[in-house]
């Protein structure tokens, strides 16, 4: 039968597990956009920490050294999350294009069945093949984008592990900065820890969503 001849068995294996993959893609993009905003918050915290450490003087010398690491972490996190966000947007667009191609194929299938006795039915074959090829190409791009995004998320998660260490070190140094600055410096440490935790939560959420696509 014509439809079986035209349909490629691989077409259904990847996407059939979750029909809402384009919604998942959009949710991942939204999570990662939120993560980027939080990362920008770390950058601001790092600037505040530097100013505070300078005001605290010699008593906060140890903390001042840590602010360099916080700034490095902020720069790396903002850069990674921006890159990941770009990947996520492209991935979301691919998934929407793929959904459109799938919709077209489903409608073509309907037309093939409905017009099975039409003398011109085979004139649809070209459009069907083109759409099928486009769909396969998009599937491949989609898979590559998922892999790349997973890898980038893993890198970001790894970078953020240092935030926990930095927050702990900050608390130790804050305790030696004197009574006037201990509280504000502890707050900086807490902000770094909270931001890192929030980004990690969003990254984990994205990774979790990807498991639905597998």
């Amino acid at each position, binding site marked *: 039968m014509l439809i079986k001849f035209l349909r490629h068995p691989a077409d259904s294996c990847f996407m059939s597990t979750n029909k809402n993959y384009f919604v998942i893609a959009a949710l991942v993009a939204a999570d990662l956009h939120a993560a980027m905003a939080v990362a920008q918050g770390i950058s601001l915290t790092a600037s505040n920490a530097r100013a505070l450490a300078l005001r605290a003087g010699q008593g906060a010398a140890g903390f001042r050294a840590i602010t360099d690491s916080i700034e490095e972490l902020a720069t790396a996190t903002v850069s990674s999350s921006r890159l990941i966000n770009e990947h996520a947007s492209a991935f979301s667009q691919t998934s929407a294009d793929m959904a459109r191609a799938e919709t077209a194929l489903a409608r073509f299938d309907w037309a093939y069945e409905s*017009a099975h006795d039409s003398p011109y039915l085979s*004139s649809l074959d070209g459009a069907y093949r083109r759409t099928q090829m*486009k769909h396969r190409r998009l599937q491949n791009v989609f898979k590559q984008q998922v892999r790349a995004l997973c890898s980038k998320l893993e890198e970001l998660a790894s970078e953020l592990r240092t935030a926990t260490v930095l927050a702990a070190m900050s608390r130790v140094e804050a305790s030696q900065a004197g009574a006037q600055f201990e509280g504000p410096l502890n707050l900086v440490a807490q902000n770094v820890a909270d931001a890192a935790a929030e980004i990690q939560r969003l990254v984990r959420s994205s990774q979790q969503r990807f498991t639905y696509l597998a």
Partner: protein
Amino acid sequence: MLVKNIYQSSTHEWLMFGRDPDKPEKIIDTNQYLIKTANKAILLDPGGIELFPIMLASVVRQVPISQVTHLFASHQDPDIISSLGLWDQTLEGAQLYAPWLWESFIRHFGMDSIEYVSIPDPGLTLDLEGVALEFIPAHYLHASGNYHVYDAQAKILMSGDVGAAMEPVGVPFEVSDFDSHAKYMETFHRRWMPSNRAKDDWIERVSTLDIDMMCPQHGRVFIGDDVKRFLEWFSKLEVGTGIPS
């Protein structure tokens, strides 16, 4: 979906598609038209996305899909052209003739391969293998950028939403008793058509045309003297009634 050949000559044919029995209940019934010459064809107001598969199946019963070289959209409404994204994946190298005013809106339906040919305000004429199809202005009837299609050789006017009727499903293709049909048109025209000035301007223009058949996008086709009856009825109708006076 039913198909009716409404005109046939040595140069071209007009086919009308509609009265789809499988149409979802809450979707308005629409008429689609196909004009085919020896090697080309144009689909007029190809319809909504829900209608696409049945339209595609109906079209390939009539012509090879490669013969559909042109599409026409009278305006931007979803029942007119929301299937565009799917036709875009079906037709290679086709052109869509549609109002210049709506290009950036219609492209939201998805259009990568089809070429958008903007119809300017005064309209234009498409030569389809020697058959002159005039896209004549019908602005504000009901969309602010709106065109109808006139075929002087066949003496057919495809009149978009003008002449539309809200009737129960499954009614015949042609108007048989104008007076009893008018009640199905009245509410639609009073509410959907916003401007008496636009209406009068259109009637004046259309009255100069030689028309045997007036084919709306909803409802029934007007034949012979019923065309004149419609113009008289429409000229007396107060439109733009959405705001209480």
